[in-house]
């Protein structure tokens, strides 16, 4: 289908963008890469009266190491993150997740800021950011504020972003020397939305897993932290018994939303399968 009619503006500065958002309010939609937004316009799921294209605003697309964190500009394309050596070294979970995002032609255009703002519960970056305990930098005319990723995703396609705020960056804590990560996703076809996915992080110290983070995608309205499974494994070696106990605990952690093809029980089963695979990858 074709998109409905809308106006279009391409501000040169954040200030100009804020002025447009103030003027049009909820009728304005922010456009970055457009890989989710334009698809939803085409399907007439959204009908904004104006698109505010951020891509001419300088300085919000880079990837930089800043002390203890990696600052990824909101306009950084998925493909740039996928191919970034800085990301591979300091936030390898993101390098592992990127190839799962749709297809190359889409990764060449889509941005991390756009994906976070969209807050699709089956998307990869939201779950990664929650797993990494990243901070989302939201900028408004009042200044910047940093929102912990775990507090950012409120519900289906809904975030903590205020109407006058624009995501300008994501700050990801740098991975330590003993850090391990794994990103796994089950799909029917390569590039499809995840049936279930898992972003997993841990420190591996003398064979034991510590500071474990297990965050699922595709099982709820937001990324879901598997706190019970994390607690079962904290400080443990990934023995068959420990893995089984964590897999059992997932029943309390997850209340999967069925989709057209997969029941809640199937999704829970698949989440357990992914947990086993992730632990094998974290602590081989």
């Amino acid at each position, binding site marked *: 289908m074709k998109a409905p009619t809308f106006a279009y503006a391409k501000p040169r500065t954040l200030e100009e963008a804020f002025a447009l958002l103030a003027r049009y309010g909820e009728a304005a939609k922010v456009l970055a890469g457009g890989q989710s937004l334009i698809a939803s316009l085409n399907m007439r799921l959204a009908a904004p009266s104006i698109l505010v294209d951020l891509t001419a605003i300088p300085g919000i697309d880079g990837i930089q190491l800043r002390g203890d964190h990696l600052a990824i500009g909101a306009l950084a394309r998925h493909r740039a993150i996928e191919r970034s050596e800085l990301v591979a070294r300091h936030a390898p979970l993101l390098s592992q997740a990127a190839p799962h995002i749709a297809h*190359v032609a889409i990764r060449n255009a889509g941005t991390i800021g756009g994906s976070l703002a969209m807050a699709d519960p089956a998307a990869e970056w939201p779950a990664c950011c929650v797993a990494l305990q990243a901070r989302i930098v939201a900028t408004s005319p009042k200044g910047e504020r940093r929102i912990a990723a775990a507090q950012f995703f409120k519900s289906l396609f809904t975030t903590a972003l205020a109407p006058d705020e624009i995501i300008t960056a994501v700050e990801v804590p740098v991975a330590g020397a003993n850090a391990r990560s794994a990103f796994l996703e089950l799909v029917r076809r390569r590039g499809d939305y995840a049936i279930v996915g898992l972003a997993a992080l841990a420190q591996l110290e003398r064979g034991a897993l510590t500071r474990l983070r297990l965050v699922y995608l595709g099982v709820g309205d937001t990324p879901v932290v598997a706190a019970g499974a994390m607690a079962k494994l904290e400080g443990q070696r990934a023995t068959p018994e420990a893995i089984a106990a964590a897999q059992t605990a997932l029943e309390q952690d997850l209340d999967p939303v069925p989709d057209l093809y997969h029941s809640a029980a199937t999704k829970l089963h698949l989440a357990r399968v992914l947990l086993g695979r992730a632990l094998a990858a974290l602590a081989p």
Partner: protein
Amino acid sequence: MDEFFEATLTVNGMPVTRRVQPRQHLIDFLRDELGLTGSHTACEHGVCGACTVRVDGQIRRGCLTLAVQAHGCSVDTVEGLTDSGELGPLQQAFHERNALQCGFCTPGMLLTAQELVSTQPDATREEIRDFMSGNLCRCTGYQAIVDAIEEVIVTRRRGAQP
């Protein structure tokens, strides 16, 4: 809100200026305004890859890109890349391997394959399948397409060896 924007872009090496509606997709701009009907439009929500074109040297979905977003950009389509000869080896291999039947998906396949061949010259069969996963073919199937792309990659690699 029937606003029009003046978009200036380079299409297949030629400067083009047109007044466009913001809602117009790049693929429709290329096909309807410029008559470049080589790139196809099918699913119109980013799934099939038939509309794949190149924007500033990288493949994009023509149906998930607005024409206004391409303002100031350089756009290449199957027509331009055929004329320049860049797609020649892939086109030859597709022909020889019978990697097209109705041909509807072929322009998108060629553009995607060309980005693979140029960015991953050592791609394995598995990597070819992975890279091509966003382009759907509804008649020939994928075996011959992967064969053709693999042939180009292997031939190039042999040619690159001293």
